[in-house]
C-alpha cells in the first residue's frame, strides 16, 4: 500500500490559489471577454455584404478552428515579438511577456469559436426585427447595435458560457510556455515533493467541481434570461 500524504494540499493551498488559480481565472475572464467582443465583430464581418470582409473573417475562423490550440499558443509566443518588431519598426523583437502572449492567443483563438456562436445568434433574429429598426430610421450600425446583437447575445448566453467553461479548462495548456497557472502550480508542488498522485488528483477535483457547478448555473440562468416572446 503506497503512502499518501494529503496534508501537502492544505500546506500549499495558499500558493495554489494565489499564484495558480488567480492566474487561471484572470486569463479565462479576460480572454472570454476579449474573444466575445472580437468574435462579435468577426460575426458581423462574416455577415456583411462589403466585399472582402466576409472572406477575411471566414478564412480567419477556418484557420483558427483547424489548428491545435497548443500549436497556436506556441506560435504566438514565438511570433508575436517578431510581428511587433515589424509593426513598430524596432531593432530587436518586441518583448511581450508570457501573460500578454497567452492573453492575445486565447482571445484570438476563442474569437473564432465565439464568432460562430454569435453568427448563429444574429441569424436567428427574425428579419422583421431589422425591418422595424430600419423603418424607424435607424442605420445599419444602430440596428445591429441596439436591436440585433443584444438579442443575439441574450439568446446565445448559455452557449457562450458553456464555451467559456471549455476555455477555463483549456487555459491549462499555458504550461507549454512555462506559465504557472493552477495546474502548473499543482504540478510544481507535485514534482518538488514527489506527490504526483495527490496533487494531480486534487487538481482534477478542483477543475471538475468548478466546471460542473458552472454548468449547473448556466442551466438555471438559461431558464431565467430567455426573452419573453
Amino acid at each position, binding site marked *: 500500500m503506497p503512502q499518501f500524504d494529503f496534508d501537502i494540499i492544505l500546506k500549499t493551498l495558499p500558493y495554489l490559489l494565489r499564484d495558480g488559480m488567480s492566474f487561471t481565472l484572470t486569463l479565462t475572464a479576460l480572454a472570454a471577454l476579449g474573444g466575445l467582443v472580437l468574435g462579435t465583430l468577426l460575426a458581423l464581418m462574416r455577415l456583411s455584404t462589403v466585399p472582402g470582409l466576409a472572406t477575411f473573417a471566414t478564412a480567419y475562423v477556418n484557420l483558427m478552428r483547424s489548428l491545435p490550440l497548443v500549436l497556436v499558443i506556441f506560435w504566438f509566443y514565438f511570433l508575436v515579438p517578431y510581428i511587433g518588431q515589424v509593426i513598430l519598426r524596432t531593432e530587436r523583437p518586441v518583448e511581450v511577456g508570457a501573460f500578454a502572449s497567452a492573453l492575445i492567443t486565447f482571445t484570438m483563438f476563442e474569437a473564432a469559436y465565439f464568432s460562430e456562436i454569435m453568427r448563429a445568434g444574429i441569424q436567428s433574429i*427574425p428579419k*422583421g*426585427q431589422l*425591418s*422595424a*429598426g*430600419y*423603418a*424607424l*430610421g*435607424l*442605420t445599419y450600425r*444602430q440596428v445591429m447595435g*441596439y*436591436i440585433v446583437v*443584444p*438579442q443575439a447575445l*441574450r439568446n446565445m448566453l448559455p452557449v457562450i458560457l458553456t464555451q467559456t467553461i471549455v476555455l477555463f479548462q483549456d487555459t491549462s495548456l499555458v504550461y507549454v510556455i512555462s506559465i504557472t497557472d493552477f495546474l502548473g502550480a499543482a504540478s510544481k508542488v507535485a514534482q518538488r515533493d514527489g506527490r504526483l498522485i495527490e496533487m494531480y488528483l486534487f487538481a482534477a477535483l478542483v477543475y471538475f467541481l468548478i466546471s460542473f457547478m458552472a454548468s449547473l448555473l448556466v442551466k438555471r440562468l438559461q431558464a431565467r434570461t430567455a*426573452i*419573453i*416572446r
Partner: protein
Amino acid sequence: MPTTQPAMIELAAVSKWYTPQFQVLKDCTTSVSKGEVVVVCGPSGSGKSTLIKCVNALEPFQAGTIRVDGVNLSDPGTNLPKLRSRIGMVFQHFELFPHLRITENLCLAQEKVLGRSRDEAMTKGMALLERVGLKDHALKYPGQLSGGQQQRVAIARALAMDPIAMLFDEPTSALDPEMITEVLDVMVELAREGMTMMVVTHEMGFARKVAHRVIFMDHGEIIEDRAKDEFFSSPRSDRAQLFLSKILSH
C-alpha cells in the same frame, strides 16, 4: 377629397423581379396625397405588401420611381434612414423589440435618430401610450402584452417619430378577432385627424369608413385605383368583383 393637395407618395411604373422569370410588381403607378387615406387590397400573393415595403425602401425595386415628399428613393444621394424616419410603418407581426421595455421601444429611435433627450422622448412616448390606452403597461416587456396591445404600441412607436405619412402592412391580419377592433379604432381616429395613410388590409369595413381611395391589386398589377364609393358600388374589373364577392359574402 383632398386631391388638390400635392402628392406625398408618388409611384411611377414601379416594377420588381425576384428572378428574371418571376415579376412581383408590374408597372405600378399611383399616388397618395397629403391627408389622404388609401387602402390597398387584393388576394394573397398579389404584391400589396411588397408594394408598400417599396415605399420606404425596405424592399428594393428594379424599375420605375418612387418619390416621398418629393424625394426620389432611387437617387443615390438620398439619405434613406433619414427619409424612413419621416414615414411611420406598422407591420403585420408588430415587430416590437422584445428585449426592451415598452417605454424603451418608444424612446429608442426618438433619441438615436431624432436626437431628442430622454425626458423629451419619454414625455412624447407616454402621451402616445395614453392615447392608445396603454399607459399602465409602460414598464412591461412586449411579450407580456396581447397581440392587439402590442400592435397599438407599435402604432404609438411609429407616431412618436412625428411622421408625415403612415404605412400599414396588414396590421390586423395576425390578430385574434376580438383584438382587431381595438387596433382599427386607433387607425380610424388617426385617419380622421388627417394623417396621410397607405393601408394594406382586408378590413373592408375600415375601407368603407375612412378610406378616400381603394387600390385593388392582383398578380403584381394595380387593377383598380378608384374613389372608395365607386370601388364598392361598381368595380369595373371582373377580378375585383370576384374578390369583393368572396370577401363580403359573409
